[in-house]
């Protein structure tokens, strides 16, 4: 009896060690591929730079006070110079400072939207793909209905029911974003369901919850990582669009889309009000896309819907 247990635990230990080695091996090989790929390296550095700037915004920006309802009418509409790299806006605030603080809002948008919608979508996707039948039909038809409108239009419609704030915009986008993750995970689950390791788990009497979360979910991890990285860029894009239309970030809060929309009224003379926030958005989204693309190569993900 005791010997049996010892044997079992040593088998368990062996499995743990083998798994650990396999994991280290995969990470090592992935990291090697990641390093070799200049595109993903560039994307990763761009995203990292923006995240650092956003976190350290009060310390790295020259005029942190300009992020709020600050006015200095003696220095309005100044062209880019050494003291104001990106120039100043219609009430004399430093555009560079506001762009960096705007990054905070954009990143927060991505975190909140994906933080709400990914777990929800993944759960529904697992359930749909695993159980199949009418459950799958119902869930998948739901995603069809939500995807019948462009994300921006759907978010606009939901936003329109409330007073516009950035928090409402985040919720509205989260309401639609789960569909993409649901579809992705449902597809993977459907194909994993017939794999031997899942059938083995079923045979020894594992519960559905255990199979879903311990056997299937870990195998979705790489696809999810790639999808989330790429999605961060798209969510920021939609958020910037909502702000541009006046339904997202409300002034005096600095939002990149809001800044562009205000700057557009002063084209072409005060070009810096539009050009720099535009470049800032482009930089961040490009970073996420390059990183996501690199991760896809690195983790060797090939799933429909990415």
């Amino acid at each position, binding site marked *: 009896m005791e010997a049996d247990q010892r044997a079992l635990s040593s088998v368990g230990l062996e499995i743990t060690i083998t798994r650990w080695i396999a994991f280290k091996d995969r990470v090592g090989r992935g990291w090697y591929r990641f390093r070799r790929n200049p595109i993903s390296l560039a994307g990763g550095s761009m995203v990292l730079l923006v995240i650092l700037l956003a976190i350290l915004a009060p310390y790295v920006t020259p005029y942190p006070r300009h992020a709020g309802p600050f006015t200095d009418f003696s220095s309005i509409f100044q062209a880019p110079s050494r003291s104001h790299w990106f120039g100043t806006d219609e009430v004399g605030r430093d555009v560079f400072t506001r762009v960096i603080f705007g990054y905070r809002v954009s990143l927060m948008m991505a975190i909140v939207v994906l933080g709400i919608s990914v777990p929800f979508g993944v759960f529904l996707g697992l359930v749909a793909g695993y159980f199949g039948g009418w459950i799958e039909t119902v869930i998948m*038809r739901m995603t069809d*209905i939500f995807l019948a409108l*462009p994300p921006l239009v759907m978010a*606009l419609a939901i936003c329109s029911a*409330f007073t516009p704030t950035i928090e409402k915009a985040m919720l509205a986008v989260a309401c639609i974003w789960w569909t993409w993750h649901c579809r992705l995970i449902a597809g993977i689950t459907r194909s994993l369901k017939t794999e031997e390791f899942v059938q083995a788990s079923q045979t020894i009497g594992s519960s559905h919850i255990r199979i879903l979360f311990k056997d299937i979910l870990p195998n979705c991890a790489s696809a999810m990582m790639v999808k989330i990285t790429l999605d961060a860029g798209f969510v920021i894009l939609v958020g910037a669009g909502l702000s541009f239309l006046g339904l997202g970030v409300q002034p005096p809060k600095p939002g990149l889309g809001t800044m562009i929309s205000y700057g557009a009224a002063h*084209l072409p003379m005060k070009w810096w009000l539009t050009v720099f926030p*535009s470049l800032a958005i482009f930089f961040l989204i490009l970073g996420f896309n390059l990183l996501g693309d690199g991760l896809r190569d690195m983790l060797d993900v090939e799933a429909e819907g990415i």
Partner: protein
Amino acid sequence: MNFASFFTRRLLHSILVLVGLSILIFIIARILPGDPARLALGPFASKRQVEHLRHQMGMDQPLHLQYVSYVRGIFHGDLGLSFQTRRSVSLDIAHYLPATIELVMMAIVWVLVIGVPFGVLAGRYKDSWLDNMSRVVAFIGVAVPPFVVGLMGQLIFSYGLGILPTAGRLSLLTPAPPTWTGFLIVDSLIAGNFTALGDALEHILLPSFAIAMTGIGQITRLTRGSVSDILGKDYIEAARAFGIPNRYVTFKYMLKPSFIAPLTILGLTFASELGNAFLVETVFGWPGMAKYGIRAILRKDFNAIMGVVLIIGVAFVVVNLIVDVLAGYVDPRIRIREEE
């Protein structure tokens, strides 16, 4: 699965989505905002006025009856009155819709004319400078918001070089052709008015390109992938082994199957372009439905908002149905996959 039953299945599926969409819109319009009557009349209206409007809008009835009368209204082309224009929403939409359709169609033309050939070349000459350029275009297309493309286009081509107009569908000095279809390009062609045609084309160039940018990138990459997949197939190898000339292999065996992948996502491209239109019409002061919708949203004009959203949903479902059926017609493999 034969084509007829494939078609029926797709059709039923589309109808199901439309029903679901109408329920969703109904929820957003009638349940989320609390009291649309109060919102429409503003905070200073008396309680009796609000009650009166509620009664007029049929909002004192149970929800399921409200839904039934809402759907009945849709089938009669009645989307309610717009609070801001004081006209029927269906009339408003009929007035603004052609401008948006024209814009989005032009964008689709850009996507097909640039994206597909570019993708074919990039896939055919893999890892050449052309292929690398297609990669750059795809990344830029996805990463630049459409309104930024529009604004930068204005800055360079309108303000900087002064060769393209900044806003509107026609110059003030150009007399508009008589309205037949509402599509300026078509109308001016019918009237044989080539000044108006040239002017309309000049005006549509920048906004349609701004809308198309994302789609160009996506279609290019997709076509490229599909071409390079097909070039690796055995039957291409076999054709080459038989000594069939390269040009012949390309045009006879490679091209047709490689168009299927871009065709299948054209429906999604169309949807994302309709979404982009909301941003780009604002930039260019384009008098289309998206601009009408935005104004309705900012002024809480619920009937108008829901009308616009419904039309976009219907357009998306119909376009997707057409694209799916077309793809199933061209490629029997899609029909077989549907069966599984």
